[in-house]
C-alpha cells in the first residue's frame, strides 16, 4: 500500500515539511551534541532553564526522520511505535510510580551532573504526552482508514502543548509549561514540538483545518491573514495585561477589561480591513471572471474548432492511412494478378522481382522465374531485338520503351509471342530496377494476321469489282477508290486519293450526286438513285449509285447501267411499237372480223336464195308436170331437192359455227336443270318420235354463257333422240356429278352408239360416224358443242358401245376458277 503521491502543487508544503523536519533534526542533533560535549547553549537556550532531555532529543530525531520518510510505511510504523513507546513508558513511570529510567539511560552521568533547581533533567510528562500524540499521528498516517480530521486534531493537540509551553515561558507562567510538580517541558522542546507539529500539519492529505487555511480562495486568504492575528494578538494582549498587572499599572479587572476592549477593537478593525480586502478581491475576481468567461467562451469555441479540426485531421490521417493501405493492397493485387507479368531487373540484369502473373504468361512461378536466365528462353532470332530494347530503355531512364513482339518459350515448351514494355527506373529509390511489363500477344498476332488477310481479301475484292467503289471521308476527300472507278475517269488513283471531290471534279457541288452525298453525311441514311454522267471524252453514261453511310464517311457503289439503260430504252421503244402493232393488228382483226361478218351475212343470205330456187322449182316441176314425169324422173327431182336442202343446212351450220367462234362469252349463273328440260321439251316437240323414258337427275347451276350452253344441250339432246330413234324403247338419261372440282354433265342414250375406234373423230367439223342414209346430219353439231365447251375452258368427251348406246360427257371448271380467269376476249362484233 502506498500513500498518495505528492503532486507538484504540493511541492511547497512538501518543502515546508522537509524544512520543518530538518529544523527539528538539527535541534535534536545540536542538543545531543550539547549533552555530549557539554555545550550549555545547545542544551538550554537560556541559562537557568530546563534543558532538553536526551531522550526527548532522540524522540525528536525519530520524529524528524519520520516526517521526512513518509513514503516508507514500514519505517514509519516502526518509528511511530518507538515514539509512542518512549512517551508511553514515561507516562507509565509517572502514573504508576514504577521505575522506568528510560529517560535517564542516555548520558546518565551527565544528567546526574546537570541539575536544575536540584532536579536532573527528566523528560517532562507533557513532553511524553506530546510524543504519544506525535507517534500516534504518524501511526495513523500509515492507516488510511482513519478520518483525516482526527489525525489533524491530535496533531493540533500536540501543537497546543508546545504553544502552551512557549506562552508559559513567554508569560513567565510556570504552570503552562509544567504539570503538577513534575518536570516542565524545556523551552527548546516546546519550540521543537511547535516546529514538528507545523511540519506534521501539512502532511498530505491535509486535514480540514489546514485545507481551509491553505486554500486559494477568499476563505484561505482570510484565514491566512487572520489566523496569525487571532493567535498573536490575544497572546500580545495577554502579555500586555500580565505585564501591566505585574507592574501594577492597573488592577486585574482593569487589565481584563483592557484585554477585552483591545481584542474587540482589533477584531473589528481586522474584520473591517479583511472584509474590504475580500470585497476588493471579489470585485477583481468578478472582473477577471467575466473576462475569463469571455475568454472561456472564446476558448471553448476555439477549442471546439480545434478539436473538430483535430478530429477531422485525425480522421483524414486515418483515412489517408487506410487508403494508402488499400492502395498498396490494390496495386499489389494488380501486379500479382494482372494479365501482364511484371519483372524488375537490377542494373546487372538479374531479376529482383517477378509478379505472380508471370505464371499465367510463361508458366513459371515467381520464384522459378527469378532463377531463369531470360536469354535462354528468348527465341534466338528475336534475342538481338530484345537486347536492343533493353539498351534503349537504359539510355532513356524513366521513359517506357516498347519492344517488338518476340518469341519466348513457355515453361511447357511452346513458343509464345510476347510484347514487352521496359522502363528504366534505376533512379527511383522505390523501384531501383528496370521494370519489364510483358504480355502474351500470340492470339492477338494471330487475329491481326487473320484481320490483315481478311482486309486484303476485301480490298482485293473491292479492287477487282466491276462496279466502281469510292469511299469519301467526312471532309469530302477520296479515302479509297477502286480500279473500276478510275477507269474512264481520266484520273489515276494517286490523283484522287487525299484530294477532295471538289478539287478533282470542279463543279461537282452542283450535281445531284453531291446533294445526295451531303444528305447521307448528315442524316446517315442510304440512298439509291440513277445518275447520268458525262465522261471526259464527252461520252454519256448512266450509273446506278448506292450511297451508304460508313464509319469513315460515305461509301458509293456505282454500277454502270449504260447498257441496261440502252436496253431499257430499246425495250420501251419496242413496247411502244409493240403496242402500236397490237393496236394495228387489233384494228386489223376487227376490220377482218367485220369483213367476215359481212361476208358470212352475205353468204348466208345470197347462198340461200339460189338454193331456194333449186329446191322450189324442182318441187314445182314435180307438182306441176308430174304427169309428164315417170318414177325415175320424179326420183331425180327429189334428189335435186334434198341436196339443195342439205346444202342449205350446211350453210346454216357453218354460219353458226363460225359465229360461235367469234362470240364473246356472256357468263351468268345458269340453271342447267331448267335449261336441259326446256331443250328436251323443244326437241321432243319437234320430233314425232316418242321417247319412252327420260330420266333427268337434279342438275346444279353453273356459270356459263346461257345461249351457247343451250346450243350444247340442243346438240347433245337432239343427237340422243336421233340416234336412239331406231330402238324399240328409246331411253335418255341426263345426270351430273363433281369430279376433281369440276361439274360434269352426262347425256346417255340407249341408241345405236358408235365405234369407239373412231371416237377421236367425233368432234371434228363435218366428221360423221354414220352415213347420211342412216342418220341425217351435217357433222357440225358436235364440233359446235365442242367449240363452245372449249370456249368455257371445259372438256367434252364421249364413250359408247355399238348398238348399246352412247354417253356424252362435258365438264365445266368450278365457278371459282372461272371467275379468277379473265374472260375478256377480243370483241369482234
Amino acid at each position, binding site marked *: 500500500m502506498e500513500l498518495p503521491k505528492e503532486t507538484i502543487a504540493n511541492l511547497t508544503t512538501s518543502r515546508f515539511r522537509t524544512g520543518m523536519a530538518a529544523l527539528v533534526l538539527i535541534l535534536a542533533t545540536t542538543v545531543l551534541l550539547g549533552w555530549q560535549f557539554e555545550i550549555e547553549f545547545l542544551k538550554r537556550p537560556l541559562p537557568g532553564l530546563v534543558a532538553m532531555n536526551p531522550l526527548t532529543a532522540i524522540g525528536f530525531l525519530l520524529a524528524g526522520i519520520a516526517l521526512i520518510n513518509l513514503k516508507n510505511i514500514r519505517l514509519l510504523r516502526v518509528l511511530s511505535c518507538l515514539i509512542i513507546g518512549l512517551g508511553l513508558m514515561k507516562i507509565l513511570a509517572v502514573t504508576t510510580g514504577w521505575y522506568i529510567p528510560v529517560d535517564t539511560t542516555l548520558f546518565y552521568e551527565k544528567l546526574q551532573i546537570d541539575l536544575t533547581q536540584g532536579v536532573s533533567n527528566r523528560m517532562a510528562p507533557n513532553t511524553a504526552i506530546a510524543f504519544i500524540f506525535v507517534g500516534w499521528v504518524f501511526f495513523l498516517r500509515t492507516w488510511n482508514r482513519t478520518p483525516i480530521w482526527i489525525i489533524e486534531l491530535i496533531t493540533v493537540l500536540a501543537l497546543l502543548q508546545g504553544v502552551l509551553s512557549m506562552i508559559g515561558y513567554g508569560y513567565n507562567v510556570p504552570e503552562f509549561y509544567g504539570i503538577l510538580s513534575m518536570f516542565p517541558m524545556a523551552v527548546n522542546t516546546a519550540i521543537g514540538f511547535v516546529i514538528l507539529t507545523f511540519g506534521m500539519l501539512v502532511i498530505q492529505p491535509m486535514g480540514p483545518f489546514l485545507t481551509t487555511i491553505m486554500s486559494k480562495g477568499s476563505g484561505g486568504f482570510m484565514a491566512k491573514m487572520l489566523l496569525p492575528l487571532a493567535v498573536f494578538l490575544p497572546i500580545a494582549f495577554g502579555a500586555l495585561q500580565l505585564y501591566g498587572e505585574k507592574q501594577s499599572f492597573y488592577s486585574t479587572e482593569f487589565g481584563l477589561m483592557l484585554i477585552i476592549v483591545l481584542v474587540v477593537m482589533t477584531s473589528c478593525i481586522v474584520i473591517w480591513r479583511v472584509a474590504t480586502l475580500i470585497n476588493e478581491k471579489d470585485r477583481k475576481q468578478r472582473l477577471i471572471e467575466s473576462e475569463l468567461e469571455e475568454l472561456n467562451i472564446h476558448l471553448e469555441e476555439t477549442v471546439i474548432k480545434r478539436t473538430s479540426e483535430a478530429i477531422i485531421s485525425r480522421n483524414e490521417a486515418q483515412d489517408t492511412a487506410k487508403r494508402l493501405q488499400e492502395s498498396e493492397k490494390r496495386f499489389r493485387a494488380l501486379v500479382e494478378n494482372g494479365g501482364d507479368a511484371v519483372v524488375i531487373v537490377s542494373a546487372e540484369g538479374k531479376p529482383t522481382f517477378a509478379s505472380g502473373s508471370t505464371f499465367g504468361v510463361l508458366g513459371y512461378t515467381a520464384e522459378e522465374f527469378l532463377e531463369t536466365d531470360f536469354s535462354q528462353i528468348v527465341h534466338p532470332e528475336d534475342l538481338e531485338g530484345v537486347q536492343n530494347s533493353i539498351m534503349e530503355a537504359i539510355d532513356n531512364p524513366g521513359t517506357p520503351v516498347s519492344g517488338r513482339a518476340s518469341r519466348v518459350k513457355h515453361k511447357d515448351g511452346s513458343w509464345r509471342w510476347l510484347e514487352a514494355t521496359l522502363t528504366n527506373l534505376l533512379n527511383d529509390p522505390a523501384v531501383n530496377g528496370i521494370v519489364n511489363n510483358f504480355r502474351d500477344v500470340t492470339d492477338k498476332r494471330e487475329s491481326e494476321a487473320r484481320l490483315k488477310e481478311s482486309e486484303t481479301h476485301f480490298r482485293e475484292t473491292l479492287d477487282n469489282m466491276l462496279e466502281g467503289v469510292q469511299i469519301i471521308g467526312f471532309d469530302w476527300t477520296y479515302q479509297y477508290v477502286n480500279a473500276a472507278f478510275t477507269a474512264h475517269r481520266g484520273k489515276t488513283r494517286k490523283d484522287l486519293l487525299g484530294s477532295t471531290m471538289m478539287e478533282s471534279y470542279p463543279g461537282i457541288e452542283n450535281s445531284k450526286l453531291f446533294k445526295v452525298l451531303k444528305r447521307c453525311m448528315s442524316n446517315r441514311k442510304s440512298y439509291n438513285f440513277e445518275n447520268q454522267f458525262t465522261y471526259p471524252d464527252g461520252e454519256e453514261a448512266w450509273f446506278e449509285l448506292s450511297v451508304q453511310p460508313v464509319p469513315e464517311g460515305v461509301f458509293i457503289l456505282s454500277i454502270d447501267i449504260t447498257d441496261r439503260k440502252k436496253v431499257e430504252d430499246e425495250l420501251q421503244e419496242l413496247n411502244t411499237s409493240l403496242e402500236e402493232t397490237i393496236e394495228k393488228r387489233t384494228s386489223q382483226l376487227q376490220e377482218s372480223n367485220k369483213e367476215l361478218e359481212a361476208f358470212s351475212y352475205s353468204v348466208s343470205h345470197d347462198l*340461200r336464195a339460189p338454193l331456194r330456187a333449186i*329446191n322450189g322449182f324442182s318441187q314445182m316441176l314435180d307438182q306441176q308436170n308430174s304427169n309428164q314425169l315417170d318414177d325415175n324422173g320424179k326420183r331425180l327431182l327429189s334428189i335435186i331437192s334434198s341436196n339443195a336442202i342439205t346444202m342449205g343446212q350446211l350453210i346454216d351450220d357453218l354460219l353458226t359455227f363460225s359465229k360461235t367462234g367469234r362470240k364473246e362469252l356472256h357468263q351468268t349463273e345458269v340453271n342447267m336443270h331448267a335449261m336441259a328440260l326446256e331443250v328436251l321439251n323443244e326437241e321432243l316437240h319437234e320430233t314425232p318420235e316418242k321417247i319412252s323414258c327420260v330420266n333427268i337427275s337434279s342438275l346444279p347451276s353453273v356459270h356459263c354463257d346461257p345461249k351457247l350452253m343451250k346450243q350444247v344441250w340442243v346438240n347433245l339432246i337432239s343427237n340422243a333422240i336421233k340416234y336412239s330413234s331406231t330402238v324399240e324403247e328409246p331411253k335418255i338419261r341426263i345426270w351430273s356429278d363433281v369430279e376433281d372440282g369440276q361439274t360434269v354433265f352426262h347425256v346417255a342414250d340407249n341408241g345405236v352408239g358408235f365405234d369407239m375406234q373412231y371416237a377421236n373423230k367425233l368432234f371434228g367439223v363435218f366428221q360423221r360416224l354414220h352415213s347420211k342414209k342412216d342418220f341425217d346430219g351435217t357433222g357440225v353439231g358436235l364440233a359446235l358443242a365442242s367449240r363452245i365447251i372449249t370456249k368455257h375452258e371445259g372438256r367434252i368427251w364421249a364413250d359408247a358401245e355399238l348398238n348399246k348406246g352412247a354417253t356424252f360427257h362435258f365438264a365445266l371448271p368450278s365457278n371459282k376458277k372461272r371467275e379468277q380467269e379473265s374472260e375478256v376476249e377480243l370483241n369482234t362484233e
Partner: protein
Amino acid sequence: MENRIADLLLVEDNPYDAELTLSALRQKNLANNLEHVEDGAEALDFIYARGKFESRKGKPLPRLILLDLKMPKVNGIEVIEKLKADPLTKTIPIVVLTSSAEDPDIKRCYALGVNSYIVKPVDFEDFIAAIIDVGMYWLLLNKAPK
C-alpha cells in the same frame, strides 16, 4: 295493169323467189290482187302513186306488204323507214320475208315497227307453207284498219 287494185304488194328482187311466192299464193287464191315490184324505189312509187304508178292516185293502199330486205337501189330497211315515218302509210302491215336470219336485222325491223319477220326457208314445202300461212292470216283473218 298499173291501175289494178292491189291488196298485196310483193317487193322482191329475186325473180325465182318471186315466182315461188306467187305460185304458193296462187294455190290458195291469194294472188288475185297482187302487185309485184322489184326494188324498194318502185315499192315506194307504188305506194305513193308516182313514177310508173302515177295512175294509182286515189287508189286504196295495199292490205299487206311482203318485203324483202336485200334489194338494189332502195333496200327493204329504207322502205320500212319511209313507210313507217309517214302517218298515212304506217298502218300498212309489213311482213319481212327474207333470207337473212341475222339478229341485228331482225331487231332493226321490229324496232321500226314491222309486224312480222319470216326467214325464207330453203325447203320449198316449208316455204310454201310459210307463204300460205302469212297470206291467209293477213289477208283473210286479220282485220286491217280502214
